[in-house]
């Protein structure tokens, strides 16, 4: 029996079945129990109702490297109905879709209220099947359909041999429902108990031996169960952001919700823009008034803001731009992850202007790197992009609280009344660092004119060729200063010298780390070089790093290899590529295998899940989904 290492998957019909209500409870409780829960492979549809939804979760004793491979130990199917007219329809198909991921000897628990599912094929693989009529119990016995998921949760806890005294569950239920009355808590506990009982019944009837177990490790540490977007929101608040604007869009809407809830409590304001441009313009306005400002969106909204990035660059008005990436182009697949916006954020905008691109590798870095983004935007007075992706943004995991250090905020180079008494204030003074003294409007003597049109040191419009050249150089010089003073080299795992090097950036780090470990175990000593400070790149330092490296394989979740292109452009090294762009997250084993393939030949491009034959499709058998 394996202890404290379980991968679960909960599936059901979106909106109706409450998939994430269940996983959120699980994640919270496991975290309280001192375990580590990682639910980063969000499977949901952008339509609101009726599509299939699933949420895998890895639970471990020690912090796991990544969320692991797709195989699961326990599959929980919340779907309760089956429509004989439409066998493929989403509201009964968790088992059909995910049964194949169940490990031999794993556990399937499903809602059997409307009848049992044929599971012979699974049982033949030693899978233990637990049909639980959760909804029927909730409706007929307990008279509250809504508690069906608690029945399932109780069943699941029994299957994991967890919380047998109901202490964790009771605590959570009391926090949530006590204000509605003790009866509500009791009803829920009763539901959980019924779930346990049903499991007992099946266990007895089949003489199953459960394969996995979760043991609490209470009191080891303080931890929260939290998403990437929530962490970056916290980071922004700790980093001094007091104005946030966003127009709703998956998967950035949750940042807006977080900010609307919390910013006012820290004296700030959050604005739901009436469009993508009102958002960033208002943020620029607030930044102009001296307030640290941030906007968040995803691909379509970032594309729409491009013109304003130039305004930020040219008027030297800082703004942090979170791009919670999703699969493009265009509307694409709004609920699927991708790393497809790098070219957009490094190239979007006419003319040359300075910008910095950061991409956190983990939920924790959504906090820590955001602190850096806050300082960088303030110091360099230019757009700072912060690239997450759907899974990192919406995915949740157990995070140790010591991550949340509270920083000293530093306001960079803002002039005060005293500073401008001696000589006339020049907002765009040409300086060796490229950074000019900023002023907060309202400061007597420090009046400025800022313009997206080319200007002189005072901000007055000018097309004098010498002034123009000096201004362009001044602005672009900020990037040299940044590279010298603030750029962070990539993290290196293993030894680069003579070894194949896997390169990654942003949210794929955990998977790449795990893939590296797999390869190491298989006797292939690869190094992993992983970037969070994605643009600009420090050419000299990186040349040194890659000087004696073996073949370089850049693994990215996009079609064209946007970061590989950037590396080639900056370092002129040959890259091989592993790309995945089918909307499914990257997994360690497939990455390891793809890297092995890529190592076989120069210039290799290995497409995970790609290069498929034309896919026959029929109207009506189509897995339809919205925008």
């Amino acid at each position, binding site marked *: 029996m394996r202890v404290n290492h379980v991968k679960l998957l909960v599936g059901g019909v979106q909106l109706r079945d409450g998939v994430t209500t269940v996983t959120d409870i699980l994640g919270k409780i496991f975290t*309280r129990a001192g375990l580590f829960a990682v639910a980063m492979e969000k499977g949901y549809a952008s339509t609101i109702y009726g599509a299939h939804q699933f949420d895998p979760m890895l639970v471990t004793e020690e912090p796991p490297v990544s969320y692991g491979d797709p195989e699961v130990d326990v599959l929980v199917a919340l779907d309760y109905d089956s429509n004989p007219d439409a066998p493929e329809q989403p509201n009964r198909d968790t088992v059909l879709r995910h049964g194949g991921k169940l490990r031999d000897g794993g556990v399937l628990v499903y809602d059997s209220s409307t009848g049992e599912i044929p599971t012979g094929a699974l049982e033949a693989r030693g899978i233990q099947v637990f049909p639980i009529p959760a909804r029927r119990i909730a409706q007929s016995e307990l008279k509250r359909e809504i508690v069906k998921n608690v029945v399932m949760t109780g069943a699941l806890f029994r299957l994991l041999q967890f919380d047998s005294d109901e202490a964790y569950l009771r605590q959570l239920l009391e926090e949530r429902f006590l204000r509605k009355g003790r009866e509500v808590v009791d009803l829920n506990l009763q539901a959980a108990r019924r779930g346990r009982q049903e499991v007992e019944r099946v266990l007895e009837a089949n003489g199953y031996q459960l394969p996995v177990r979760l043991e609490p490790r209470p009191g080891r540490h303080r931890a929260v169960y939290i998403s990437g977007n929530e962490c970056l929101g916290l980071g922004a608040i*700790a980093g001094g952001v007091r104005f946030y604007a966003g127009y709703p869009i998956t998967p950035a809407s949750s940042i807006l919700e977080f900010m609307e809830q919390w910013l006012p409590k*820290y004296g700030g304001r959050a604005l739901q823009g009436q469009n993508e*441009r009102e958002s960033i313009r208002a943020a620029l*306005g607030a930044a*102009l008034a001296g307030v640290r400002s941030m906007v968040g969106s995803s691909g379509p909204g970032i594309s729409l803001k491009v013109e304003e990035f130039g305004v930020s660059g040219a008027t030297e008005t800082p703004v942090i731009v979170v791009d919670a990436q999703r699969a493009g182009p265009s509307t694409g697949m709004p609920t699927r992850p991708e790393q497809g916006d790098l070219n957009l954020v490094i190239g979007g905008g006419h003319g040359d202007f300075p910008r910095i691109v950061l991409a956190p590798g983990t939920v924790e870095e959504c906090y820590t790197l955001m602190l850096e983004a806050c300082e960088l935007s303030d110091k360099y007075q230019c757009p700072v992009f912060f690239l997450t992706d759907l899974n990192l943004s919406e995915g949740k995991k157990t995070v140790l609280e010591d991550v949340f250090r509270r920083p000293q905020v530093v306001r960079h180079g803002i002039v005060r009344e005293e500073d401008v008494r001696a000589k006339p204030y020049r907002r765009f003074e040409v300086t060796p660092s490229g950074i000019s003294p900023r002023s907060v409007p*309202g400061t007597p003597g420090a*009046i400025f004119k800022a*313009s997206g049109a080319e200007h002189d040191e005072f901000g007055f*419009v000018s097309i004098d060729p010498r002034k123009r050249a000096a201004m362009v150089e001044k602005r672009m010089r900020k990037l040299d200063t940044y590279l010298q003073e603030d750029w962070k080299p990539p993290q290196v795992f293993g030894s680069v010298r003579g070894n194949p090097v896997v390169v990654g950036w942003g949210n794929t780090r955990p998977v790449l780390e795990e893939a590296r470990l797999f390869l190491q175990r298989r006797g292939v000593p690869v190094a992993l070089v992983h970037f969070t400070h994605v643009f600009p790149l420090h050419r000299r330092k990186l040349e040194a790093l890659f000087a004696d490296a073996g073949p370089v394989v850049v693994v990215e979740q996009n079609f064209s290899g946007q970061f590989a292109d950037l590396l080639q452009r900056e370092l002129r090294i040959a890259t091989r590529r592993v790309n995945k762009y089918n909307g499914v997250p990257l997994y360690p084993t497939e990455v390891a295998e793809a890297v092995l393939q890529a190592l076989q030949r120069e210039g290799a491009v290995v497409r995970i899940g790609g290069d498929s034959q034309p896919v026959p499709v029929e109207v009506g058998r189509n897995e339809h989904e919205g925008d």
Partner: protein
Amino acid sequence: MNTKGIKLWEENAVPKHRIQWCPGCGDFGVLAALKQALTELEVMPHELLLVGGIGCSGQIRNYLNGNAFHGTHGGALAYGLGAKMANPDLKVICLAGDGDTFAIGVENFVHVCRRDPDMVLLVMNNGVYGLTKGQDSPTAGLGQPDERGSREEHPPMVDALLLALASEATFVAQSFSGDVKHTARMIVEAIQHPGFAFINDFSPCVTYNRFNTYDWFRERVEHVPEDHDPSDRDAAWRLVREFARRGKIPLGVVYRNPRPKRPQRRLPLWEDELSGVDLEPVLATYR
């Protein structure tokens, strides 16, 4: 006229002979009126944020003292909104063209009217895109027969006042830059209005709009009648429509109906306000 006050507004600005409007441009009247109004209200230049649109008109921001910003075409209102939300002590005045505001910028106009931030928008309405050399703006066609509307390419004009009324603006006024004193009066009232104040100022483009000239306006402007109740939105609609039927152009406050406001505070921005804040209340919800 307070010339010492006016002088204050000429400091720290592109001097007069550098102004690159065509001689006779209607924007000169607005500039004069703006200086008068600011002088009268004893606003200090450092308290001011002038947000210019893109166009001949938006250049006004550099022709008088005070902080100024100038970003994208159509964006003035939204920059102003953010600045004002960040610091309610700033006096924010957006100064833009009719093209800037009603063509590309209508996406902001409609919504900022509704949001009602305590700031001013003065549109220098000349019926053309001046700076790009005289193409029709959305307000083109004032006083001209409407067969223009018979094809998609040439829609009938936007009536700025009606659009503002439909968009829930709380202060809607009209002026004519040929009458500097009245324009200054409108600016004063707009600044004093606790909420979003929109002034549609007819500022003739002497180069590209040879139809709606100073004389043309002078023959048609008429002050809003004394008995008009500016707090009545329906009366405001009626007034605008009725003037249009008579071929006349109302000058004055057409609508004024402030909404109750909660007091607002400058957002924290200094190190001591921001450093080491306590995240415990947030973290607690995730345990």
